[in-house]
């Protein structure tokens, strides 16, 4: 018998007391406080902004992720709490939903800008979360899906976004390495604005789906073009889905709306060859055997 004292059973579990109430056991209280914080953060910019996106014919980031992943399967969100205590609460989940889930039974990483939070603009912490998601994809060698819907750099905070070794440039560094050497599938869907340097995230992915009427890709938006070269041009003509899928050829697929776009991504993921770990791309089929040796009977020490 190991020298440690045996566990002691505790009295029956307390009901859902109000959070912060000292009478509630600490572990239960911390759990309830966490659930309340999560519920608030998952609303993103709030119901008014969610309605505005719906009125524009768009799903919210969380609706897109829920539709993208296999129903009923686990989704582990990564970084929901990031920046929850910063910017006076104006940056819930740092304006981007990231996590690990499954599509057609296959583990994937998902990154989805939240347009209800400052139009999906990049806070410094948005960059940290996108980089973390890419590092997970590279560490696990699983596909990554970007659902892009972002107004670009959040200018008042550009000092923490633009420069530096771990600033936004690193996103494009990881894009480039995944594409050229690591063989990690990157699928980008532009489902809203995608402006300036931000355009390089989809552009350095393997394939781009753009949603008709609501998506835009351009190194400069209409305002910048007006200011820089004095030309007045509408977003649709400058960088809309039709232009990029027929004239520039920058994008590869045109989707009628969010549901069609999400379904297209599921099809693209399903068609991906399985990664057999050797770098040589094998045909479809079972995921690679986990590297662990055949499991010894649980009771035997190693």
């Amino acid at each position, binding site marked *: 018998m190991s020298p*440690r004292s045996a566990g002691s059973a505790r009295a029956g579990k307390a009901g859902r007391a109000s959070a912060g109430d000292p009478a509630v056991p600490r572990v239960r209280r911390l759990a309830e406080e966490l659930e309340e914080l999560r519920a608030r953060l998952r609303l993103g910019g709030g119901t008014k902004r969610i309605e505005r996106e719906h009125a524009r*014919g768009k799903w919210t980031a969380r609706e897109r992720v829920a539709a993208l992943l296999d129903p009923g399967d686990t989704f582990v969100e990564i970084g929901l709490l990031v920046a929850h205590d910063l910017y006076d609460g104006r940056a819930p989940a740092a304006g981007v939903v990231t996590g690990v889930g499954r599509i057609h039974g296959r583990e994937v990483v998902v990154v989805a800008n939240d347009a209800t939070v400052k139009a999906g603009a990049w806070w410094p912490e948005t960059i940290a979360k996108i980089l973390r998601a890419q590092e997970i994809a590279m560490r696990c060698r699983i596909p990554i899906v970007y659902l892009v819907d972002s107004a670009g750099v959040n200018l008042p905070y550009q000092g923490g976004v633009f420069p530096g070794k771990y600033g936004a440039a690193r996103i494009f560094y990881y894009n480039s390495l995944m594409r050229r050497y690591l063989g990690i599938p990157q699928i980008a869907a532009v489902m809203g604005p995608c402006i300036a340097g931000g355009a390089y995230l989809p552009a350095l992915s393997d394939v781009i789906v753009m949603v008709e009427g609501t998506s835009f890709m351009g190194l400069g938006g209409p305002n910048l073009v007006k200011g820089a070269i004095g030309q007045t041009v509408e977003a649709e003509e400058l960088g809309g889905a039709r232009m990029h899928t027929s004239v520039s050829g920058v994008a590869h697929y045109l989707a009628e709306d969010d549901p069609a776009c999400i379904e297209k991504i599921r099809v693209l993921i399903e068609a991906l060859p399985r990664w057999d770990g050797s*770098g040589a791309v094998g045909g479809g089929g079972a995921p690679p055997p986990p590297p662990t040796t055949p499991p010894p009977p649980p009771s035997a020490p190693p």
Partner: protein
Amino acid sequence: MWGASGQASRPDTTGSPGSRQGSPSSPIGPARPAEDLYDLLPDDHRHPYDMPEVLRCILDEPGLVEYQPEYAPEMMCGTGAIDGMQIAVIANARGMVRDAEGGPPRFGGIVYTKSAEKVAGFIETMNRRRRPLLFVQDVSGFMVGPKAERSGIIRAGAHFVEAMASATVPKLVLTLNHASGAGYYAMAGQGFDPDFILSLPTGRMGVMEGESAVMALFSRQLEELRERGEVPDEELRTRMDEVREDYDRQLDARFAGARGFVDEVVLPGELRGAMALLLRAALNNPGPHLGAFHLPPGVV
């Protein structure tokens, strides 16, 4: 334009991570119901609890099969499984632990020279067996003092750190309770790029507990007052309370989550589902789980 006309059917986003316990791919349940964690974990974070029982809420039946249970038992090493996937587990025991050589009892949560060497060897063996590693953190630091230093605890600690840092199998971290000082580093701190870090709401990651910070910052002042037979005045007491409160706020798992120092804070009921998915995701890569990316051979 879609949606503008009528109430479009929209996907249900109410599911929370890992809560879908019965997901098609995880038929096996834990050795003990995860909800029991609410009772097993103490009301006061400083109090001891039964780590083997806590591990039975996380691992498949029979829970942890311990390795060298009688040697340096303040550090628990063993094998187990999550959802059928064989893993190796390193966890800090809590409470007082007998010294087999009749020396003074050792504190659970503290790493000593012997326990550091024990864990280093275990990690290297498990890495050779290609078993993913799970670090269950309730660590307060390394032992200090002449006995520890003369026994070469720095060398033993370095062996522990190097073995953990250079293991090429997937590494998962669960912050259960304390996670301070160099002990936190040795138990796969975030700077060592573990594959994933999950924390329960009870996790307390930080350089040191509030009490130790008060000691580190005010010990000399308190010492002088004691020599003069005086007690700290009101102003000093408030400053000490402020330090304690500041550290307690920064030790909260939500503060770590806000800074990205953990990947996610999960509820006891979500823990197994989350770990099963993340482990399966990591096992897609048979290559070395080191660094941000690993170039395939032949890239010149």
